[in-house]
């Protein structure tokens, strides 16, 4: 299977026209509509208001276990959504980047485990953690962009599992099986940031920033070139774009998002162990991203909410131990019956609802979903 086919399969619908993102050479730039953000619709305000007001009516369990966990996991999954949706590269090592960052924060900062931690100030530990995470993501990207499609999945899986065994067997740095315990966010400005409500707002702030960053990035020349490379790397290469550099850069950017998510997820758990970078979690991040849908950054958070809800409540329906069965079956059903996760179902649903003149419902829905999700379709050049 050729690269173009693969990337075509990633792009679940018909190929979009690719905007070059650069003004045509030697002429006045075509007047572009001054739209740097999506049009704000009532539902955006509704969702934002709901998210902001959430801790005020939800009990602490829902604020912390459901809300904050879903947002932190969603942020890690967002990095995969960006890589896969915009770049056409499915990396299973995003949790490895997040976990490595968590380990670094724990090792350089303060934790309960003696002999491992260095006890540096929390902000330095977080900065070092994110820097190491981004470096690791870049390295993983550099390794895996040599490969395409299914090879990428396999190589990133192999890298992720290799890191899992390293963390499991190395006691000098990673403290082996036990990992590092009691890694908590600091008390700052009189607020203990691990209390449910402050921690919820912390994750919400990071998640919103990550989401807006990705939405913005998809409209920059870099993001548009990346989507062009996803659709047709050979043509982009012929146009003078450095395909490899763009792909590695995409891994680095996704690494930043995954690293921030990793810090939050480690603080949420209060510990980091080899189990949190094991195969189960590597796959879970993929499950979350695919469950939500890869066509738009919001899919990552949708998937995370469904995942966390299932994790907490599906066990009441069946059995505490059978969570994997439930999530596996849900995942199978979504993959088998939807083209693009929950967002795919949403598109199909709104297509059935809408009656646009002269257009088939599917085309109408697709157009609207393009207008929402992709800058390249709304301003073809």
């Amino acid at each position: 299977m050729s690269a173009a086919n693969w990337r075509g399969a990633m792009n679940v619908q018909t190929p979009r026209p690719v905007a070059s993102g650069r003004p045509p050479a030697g002429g006045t730039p075509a007047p572009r509509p001054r739209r740097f953000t999506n049009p704000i619709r009532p539902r955006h305000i509704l969702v934002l208001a709901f998210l902001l007001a959430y801790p005020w009516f939800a009990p602490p369990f829902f604020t912390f276990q459901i809300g904050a966990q879903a947002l932190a996991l969603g942020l890690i999954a967002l990095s995969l959504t960006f890589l896969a949706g915009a770049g056409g590269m499915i990396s299973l090592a995003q949790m490895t980047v997040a976990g490595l960052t968590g380990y670094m924060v724990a090792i350089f900062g303060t934790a309960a485990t003696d002999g491992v931690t260095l006890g540096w100030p929390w902000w330095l530990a977080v900065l070092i953690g994110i820097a190491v995470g981004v470096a690791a993501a870049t390295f993983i990207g550099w390794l895996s962009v040599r490969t395409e499609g299914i090879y990428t999945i396999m190589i990133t899986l192999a890298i992720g599992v290799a890191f899992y065994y390293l963390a499991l067997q190395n006691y000098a740095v990673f403290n082996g099986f036990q990992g590092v315990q009691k890694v908590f966010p600091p008390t700052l400005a009189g607020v203990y940031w691990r209390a449910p409500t402050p921690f919820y707002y912390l994750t919400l702030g990071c998640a919103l920033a990550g989401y807006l960053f990705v939405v913005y990035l998809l409209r920059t020349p870099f993001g548009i070139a990346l989507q062009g490379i996803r659709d047709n790397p050979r043509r982009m290469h012929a146009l003078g774009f450095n395909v490899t550099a763009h792909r590695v850069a995409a891994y680095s950017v996704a690494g930043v998002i995954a690293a921030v998510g990793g810090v939050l997820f480690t603080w949420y758990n209060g510990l980091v162990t080899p189990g949190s970078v094991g195969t189960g979690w590597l796959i879970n991040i993929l499950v979350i991203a695919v469950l939500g849908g890869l066509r738009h950054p919001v899919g990552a958070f949708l998937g995370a909410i469904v995942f966390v809800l299932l994790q907490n409540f599906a066990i009441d329906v069946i059995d505490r131990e059978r969570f994997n069965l439930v999530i596996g079956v849900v995942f199978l059903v979504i993959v088998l019956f939807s083209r693009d996760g929950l967002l795919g179902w949403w598109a199909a649903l709104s297509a059935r609802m809408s009656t646009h003149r002269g257009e088939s419902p599917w085309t109408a829905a697709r157009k609207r979903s393009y207008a929402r999700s992709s800058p390249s379709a709304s301003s073809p050049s």
Partner: protein
Amino acid sequence: MTRFWRGFWTLLIGIPIVALAAWGLQDNARLFVITFLNGLTLASLYFIVASGFTLVFGLMRNVNLAHGSLYLLGGYLGFYTAQFTGSWLFALAAGFAAAAVVGLAMQVSIFRFMPGQDLRQTLVTIGLSIVIADLLMWAIGAQVHQMSPPAALDGPLRGLPVIRAYSTYRLTLLPIGIAIGVALWLFLNRTRIGMMIRAGVDDRAMLAAAGVNVNLVFATTFAIGAGLAGFGGVIGAVELSMVPGEDTRLLLASLVVVIVGGMGSVVGAAVGAAILGLAETYGLAYAPTYSVVFTFVILVLVLAFRPRGILGRPA
């Protein structure tokens, strides 16, 4: 690559390996030889499982990440068959048959409906592997199952030079692995069905036009590939043990083997399995903490210089 560079790389990689081997032999010959045999027998198991994976992927472009689950399924079924009938050969047959039937069901009900959609196949098989692993854990539990070797192969083989004694069962794995490899190679390259399979991979439509039932040919291949995973499971149930988590371990081993060796090549799978098996056991024997890192370094080196694997061809 010119002849000079080939020689250069052979020397660059070969000299340290030969030097380390000489040091190991001189330092503790018994440990060195036993580790060598352990590595080769582990490689034999890896080869059996990975050859099924490479058959399915390399020839049919079907990505089956539930391969490890089939391994576990075959191992468990072999265990219970051996307990029930007391025959190791029956267990082997049961493991092969069970995995082949499940694989066939997967091919007929899922893969046939998404030809060429690598991503969806991957996702579906990941979902399947989660479900199968959990169902197996539900039905059988998380305790360790270890099969005893057949009576004829039980106990050590004595009177060997240097190492004095070695497990008969493990030594038998070597000829089994070689026999399976040779049989697969002959099957693909010297029989009519093998010819059809290779032709179907190159041009499916033309083969169908020539009057061959392509679906049947591909279903057979898939069943054989899946069956090899179950067969490996029964062998692994004696050599290693059966416990939840082994499925991902063997899946990962298969992945590394086919990545290092080159996708779709039976000979490549043999080379990859030998490298991985030897690297793992030597790592465990001489530097236990970092044995995984050796595997990883090999993977990185191969990818950096031969992105399609040692014997891989462009897709």
